[in-house]
């Protein structure tokens, strides 16, 4: 895997994409286009969320339609302390991850008792509850959203008020999230998750309490997404509960499926395709979402496995 001589299309795309993201500040500064840097930073944050969704959806077969809730929880974990002038980034991130874990644990406890379409509906319902809860809390802006005046502070270690520093902070976070998911999926725990996706009944009959393992996986995914939410809160300096609406959960699903559910890097490619197409198409027509719809249909019909699946087939042909 780490030996470039064995790389095929898939590995090259992964390495080159991450390298391009990493080197982007150098080039955009030359071209004096901070706008592009912002676009990629947002893309990378959403990619972390998509990678976390893929952990339960692609690897675990749990189709959650409420993943945007964790983005909201993470963002408010930055915004609400900042509102009380608590700007310690370590604390904020700890709250973001901790609160996401608690929310994932209790909703997972109930949701994971259900299967298929019921699971989809119940995860969506829980996320909508968070959405409406934040809309109703006037103190934190209600449906107008919350302005986050100060970004997280990391005690002088580094300063993410600086655009480039924030950008690299995000880049490192994305690489770390990918590495974490890769390690998890190859571990004993990951094998159980993969097995339970393939055949839960059989996994139980050989002695696994699949429910416990799935719940743990569900919590881990929530924690990673909560972290992404904390980044997004810092990035936008403004957070509206609208970002937790089920349509945004749907967008995350779209990114994962477009990129390739169940592959490590697919969600990053899916997010990149989504964000860049959105940027490009919305400049051309206000009906850009219709084009997305057609695109998703084409991917599902003709490119099962999404972009990553397509790259995998390219690799085999060589």
């Amino acid at each position, binding site marked *: 895997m780490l030996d470039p001589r064995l790389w095929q299309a898939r590995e090259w795309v992964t390495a080159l994409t991450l390298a391009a993201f990493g080197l982007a500040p150098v080039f955009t500064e030359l071209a004096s286009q901070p706008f592009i840097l912002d676009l990629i930073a947002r893309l990378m944050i959403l990619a972390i969320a998509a990678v976390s969704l893929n952990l339960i959806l692609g690897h675990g077969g749990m189709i959650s339609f409420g993943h945007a809730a964790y983005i909201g929880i993470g963002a408010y974990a930055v915004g609400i302390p900042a509102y009380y002038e608590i700007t310690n980034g370590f604390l904020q991130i700890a709250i973001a991850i901790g609160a996401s874990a608690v929310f994932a644990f209790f909703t997972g406890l109930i949701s994971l008792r259900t299967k298929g379409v019921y699971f989809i509906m119940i995860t969506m319902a829980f996320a909508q509850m968070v959405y409406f809860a934040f809309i109703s809390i006037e103190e934190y802006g209600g449906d107008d959203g919350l302005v986050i005046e100060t970004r997280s502070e990391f005690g002088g270690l580094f300063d993410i008020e600086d655009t480039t520093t924030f950008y690299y902070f995000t880049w490192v976070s994305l690489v770390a999230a990918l590495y974490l998911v890769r390690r998890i999926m*190859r571990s004993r725990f990951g094998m159980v998750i993969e*097995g339970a996706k*393939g055949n839960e*009944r059989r996994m139980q009959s050989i002695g696994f309490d*699949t429910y416990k*393992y799935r719940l743990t996986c569900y919590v881990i995914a929530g924690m990673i997404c909560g972290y992404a939410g904390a980044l997004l809160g810092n990035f936008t300096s403004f957070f509206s509960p609208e970002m937790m609406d089920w349509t945004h959960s749907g967008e995350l699903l779209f990114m994962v499926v477009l990129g390739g559910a169940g592959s490590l890097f697919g969600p990053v490619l899916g997010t990149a395709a989504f964000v860049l197409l959105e940027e490009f198409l919305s400049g051309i027509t206000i009906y850009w979402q219709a084009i997305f719809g057609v695109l998703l249909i084409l991917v599902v019909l003709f490119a099962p496995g999404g972009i990553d699946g397509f790259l995998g087939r390219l690799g085999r042909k060589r």
Partner: protein
Amino acid sequence: MTAAFLQISNLYKSFGGVAATDHVDLEVLEHEVHAVIGPNGAGKTTLISQLAGELEPDDGQVAFLGRDITRLPPHARAQLGLARSFQITSLMLDMTVRDNVALAIQAHDGHSFRFWRDARRDTALTDRAMQALARVGLEGRADTIAQQMSHGEHRQLEIALALATDPKLLLLDEPMAGMGSEEAARMVEILRDLKGSKTMLLIEHDMDAVFALADRITVLVYGKVIATGKPDEIRADESVRRAYLGDEAG
């Protein structure tokens, strides 16, 4: 006299008023191969599903090693040493043959809340997986994705999965189902090798296999036990002949 290994008492299960398991009493002794035979619809798979914990009985009791397991979920029974194979092949089809078996070993090697080390480089799992595959003659297929194997190989992998958990009792639901005669003969060989060291409850349609393997046979008709005994006694039993065996035993 060996104590009962698995004790089924007065087990009852009905579906919409039709009794699929009708007050069944059955005893499996340690190290014996106990076959359950009966015509289609006799409730054999329903019985095994209740023993494995997938179906909850309406009444009665299942005791394993002297412990009441009637209400235990499947994974807890598996942890006690009860393993089943499925009549309709049930595998992790997207995974390799080795990964399938390694998972079964992992299930009985402490908990699997281990998040960091690469499980496929864990020789504690892979070595034992290869041994388990060798026992059913699949060691050459370790890297094959399970989906791509033949039906007969799937049946062998079914047994390998059950064996890899190192069970005290094997519940085998028609291991020869859908096999050609050559494959079936091979399966009989595999099971014969296990005879004596493993206790087995075997459900099977293939009468040659049953009479070749079983120490005792229970005959189930419409959910009821009509006879239990040694193969010769069952062959000679008039009611069994009438209800089931017919000309096959003749």
